[in-house]
C-alpha cells in the first residue's frame, strides 16, 4: 500500500524493500512520512494573513510615498511661484532705478543744476600745456565705452531676460 501524499509538491517516497504481508488480524493504517514543507490548513490561513498584511503595508507605504512626493512637488511649485514673483519685483525695481539713474545723468538736468543751483558757467577757453617728454595715452571716450561694455556683459546676463 502506498502512502497518501498531499497533492502539491510531494515527491514520491523512496523505494523500500518489500515488507512481508501483514496478517489480517492486526491490519492497522500504515504510517507515512510527512513532507517537511507541508502546512496544515490552519498554518496556511495564518500565512495568508501575514502575506495580506505585508501587501497592505507595501501598498499603504507606496500610497503614502506618492502623496508625500506630490505634496513636496506642490510645495516646490508654490515656492517656485513665490521666487518668480520675487524676481519680478526685483526686476521691476532694477528697471526703475536704472531709469532714475539715467534721468539724473541726463545732460539737461546736470546743466540746469550747475547753472541754476551752483551758479556755474561754461569756461571761456582752455589752455593746453605742452608736456616735456613722452606722454602716455589718455583714456579716450572709446576706451570708456569698451570698459562699460565689459562691465555690462557681466551683469546683463542676470538682468536681461524676464524670469
Amino acid at each position, binding site marked *: 500500500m502506498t502512502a497518501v501524499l498531499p497533492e502539491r509538491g510531494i515527491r514520491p517516497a523512496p523505494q523500500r524493500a518489500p515488507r512481508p504481508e501483514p496478517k489480517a488480524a492486526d491490519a492497522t493504517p500504515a504510517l507515512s512520512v510527512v513532507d517537511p514543507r507541508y502546512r496544515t490548513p490552519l498554518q496556511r490561513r495564518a500565512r495568508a494573513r501575514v502575506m495580506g498584511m505585508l501587501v497592505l503595508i507595501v501598498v499603504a507605504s507606496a500610497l503614502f510615498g506618492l502623496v508625500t512626493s506630490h505634496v513636496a512637488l*506642490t510645495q516646490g511649485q508654490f515656492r517656485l*511661484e513665490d521666487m518668480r514673483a520675487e524676481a519680478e519685483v526685483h526686476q521691476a525695481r532694477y528697471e526703475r532705478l536704472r531709469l532714475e539713474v539715467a*534721468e539724473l545723468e541726463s545732460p*539737461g538736468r546736470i546743466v540746469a543744476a550747475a547753472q541754476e543751483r551752483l551758479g556755474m558757467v561754461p569756461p571761456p577757453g582752455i589752455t*593746453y600745456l605742452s608736456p616735456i617728454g613722452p606722454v602716455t595715452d589718455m583714456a579716450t571716450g572709446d576706451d570708456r565705452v569698451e570698459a562699460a*561694455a565689459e562691465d*555690462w556683459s557681466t551683469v*546683463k546676463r542676470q538682468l*536681461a531676460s524676464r524670469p
Partner: protein
Amino acid sequence: MTARGRSTGPRRNGSAANTRRAGAADRGRRGPNSRGRLAATRAAMVIAFLVLAARVVQVQGVAADRYSAVGESQRIRSVTLPAERGAIFDRSGRDLALTVRQSTVVADPRMVEDPLGAAGTLAPVLGVDAALLQTRLTRDLGFVYLARRVDDAVAEKVKALAIPGVSLIDEPERFLPAGEMALPLLGKVGSDNNGLSGLETQYEDRLAGKPGQIVVERDPRGGDIPGGVRRFDPSARGDDLVLTLDRSLQYETERALAAEIVSSNSKSGTAIVMQTRSGEILALANLQAGVDGAAPRQADKNMAVTNVFEPGSVNKVITISAALEEGIIKPDDVLDVPGTIKVADHVFSEHDPHPLAKWSITDIMANSSNVGSIMIGQRVGKQRIDNYLRDYGFGAKTGLGFPGESRGILLDPKKWSGTSIGTVPIGQGLAVTSMQMLAAYNAVANGGTWVAPKLVKATVDTEGRRHPTPEAETRRVVSARTAQQVTAMLSEVVRVGTGTAAAVDGYTVAGKTGTARKPLEGARGYQAGAYVATFAGFVPAERPEFTVIVVLDEPTPIYGGLVSAPVFAQVARYALRQYQVPPPPPDAVPVAAAGVPKSTPASAGQATSDGAAIPVVTTTLPASSPPTP
C-alpha cells in the same frame, strides 16, 4: 426572487397542505398584471442602463476630445508675457531709450459686483470720467482696460481699494531719460510698444524681442491648481542698440542749434557731427522753431536724411576738387575772373559785381566766387562733374538704411539744360541731404576717402554679448594730394574768407559756407527771400577729428557765414574739449603749405555770394543774383 422567498416561507414553517394553500394564494396575488409590471420594470432598467452606457461611450469615447477641450478651456489660463524691448544706448553705454514696466488697471466686468460704485470710486483715482468707467465695467466681456500705464502711486491706491474684479497687470512703457533729445533719430513707439518711426522702426526686429507665454491650470476662484498643467515659455528680451551718438555732444549740438534758430528766426535747423576717420555720427540734431515764440522743439522727422536742399556754394568743393584731381587746374593757377559770365541764355554773376580780377583758385574758393567756379566747372565738363558728384555720394542713399532716407536729386547729364553747366558747379539744379553733403566734406577731411556714415556701433544680445556692426564702407574719391590741397583752400575760407565765424581759437578749421535759394514747391523758379544757410567743415585741419555740417532754413540774416558758421564753431569747440583733442603744436606744418597760395586779404574786401565776412554785409540780395536754372 422576492416572490420565491415568500413562497418558501410556509414550506419551512408548516405542512405540505399549508404550503400548497400559500402557493395558490401567492399565484392569485401576482396574476398577469404583476408579471407585466415586473417585465416593464426590467425593460425600463435595461433601457436606462443602455442609455447611460451609450452616454458614457459618447462622453468618454466619441466626443472625449471635445469635452476635454471644453474642460481645459475653463481651467487652463494662458497669459502672454510681453517681451521687454531692447534699450538704446549712446556710444558710452548711457541710456537714450529704455523700457520700464508700468502698472495697467484692468477689470473683468463679469466679476465686478457693483459697476456703478466701482466706477465712482476709481474715477478720481485714475483721473478718468466715471461714466466712461461705468460703461467699460458693464460690458459683457471678460477683460477691459480701465487705465493704461499708471504711475506707482496710482497703482498703490488701486491696489488698496481691493475692488473685486479690478486688478493690475504689468505693461512695458518706453522712456527717454534725456527727454526728447535726438527724438527724430531715435523715433517713437506705439501704445503696443512697437516702433513707429526712426531707429525704433528701422531696428524693430532686433529691439522687439519675442513674447513669451505662461499656461497654468486654475480653479474657479482663480487660484493655481497644484500639480495641474503648467508651462512657462519665458519671453526673449530684444537686443540693445549701441549708437555712435555721444549724449553730451548731442545735447550741446542741440543747444547751440536751438539758440541760433531763435536768434536768426529760422524755421528749422539741422546739425551733424561726424567722427572723420570712422564715419560715426557723434551728434545729429533736427530742430524746428517753436510756435508763437516758444523754444525750438524736436522736428517731426530726421530732416538730416529725409529733407533735400539745393546746396549752393558748399558744392563748389566738388567742382574744384574734381578739377584738381583731373589736373585741369593747379592750386596756384590764377584766373581772370569777371563780374559776370554768360552760360547759354543766362548771365551768372557774383553776389556783388566786381571788375575783372585775377584770382587764384584759393581766392575763388575763399571768396566763394560763382563766376570762377563756373569757369572751372566748364573746363571739367558735365560728364566728369556728374561722375565726381556721384563719387562723393550724391544721388544715392548713404547706406544708413534710415526709414525715409532720400537719395537727393541729381539729373542725368544727358538731361542737363544749356545752363546746367553753370548752375551745377555752384550747387544749383541739384538737391542733397545734409548727410550726403557732410559725407562729401568728410571725404576731403579723410584724405580723399569717402566713408559711409554710421549710426549704430553695435548690438547687444540677451546674454550681454556685444556684436559690433560691420566697418563703414569706404571708397577713394580723390587722391590724398588733392584732398590736402582742397583742405588748404578751405582753411583759407575760414581764415580770411566767408567762414571766419567758424574759427576756433587754437585750431585750424577748414570749411565752406553756402547760401542757397529755396526752389518753389511744384513749380520752376525760387521762393522770394527764402534761403538755406549752410556751413560744412572739419577740425583740426591738420589731422581732422570731426566733420560738422550746420544747415539753417530761412534764417535772418540769410548767410551761412553769419548764422551757420558760429554754430559750427560752438559745436566744434565743445567736441574738441570733450574728446581731449589738443591743438596742433606751434611747430606744426601749416595746412596751407601744400602748395596752395594764401588767399589775398584784398580779395576779401568785396562782398561774396555767401555774405563775406568783410567788411559790411547786406541782408538783401541785389537784383543780379544768380539766375534760376
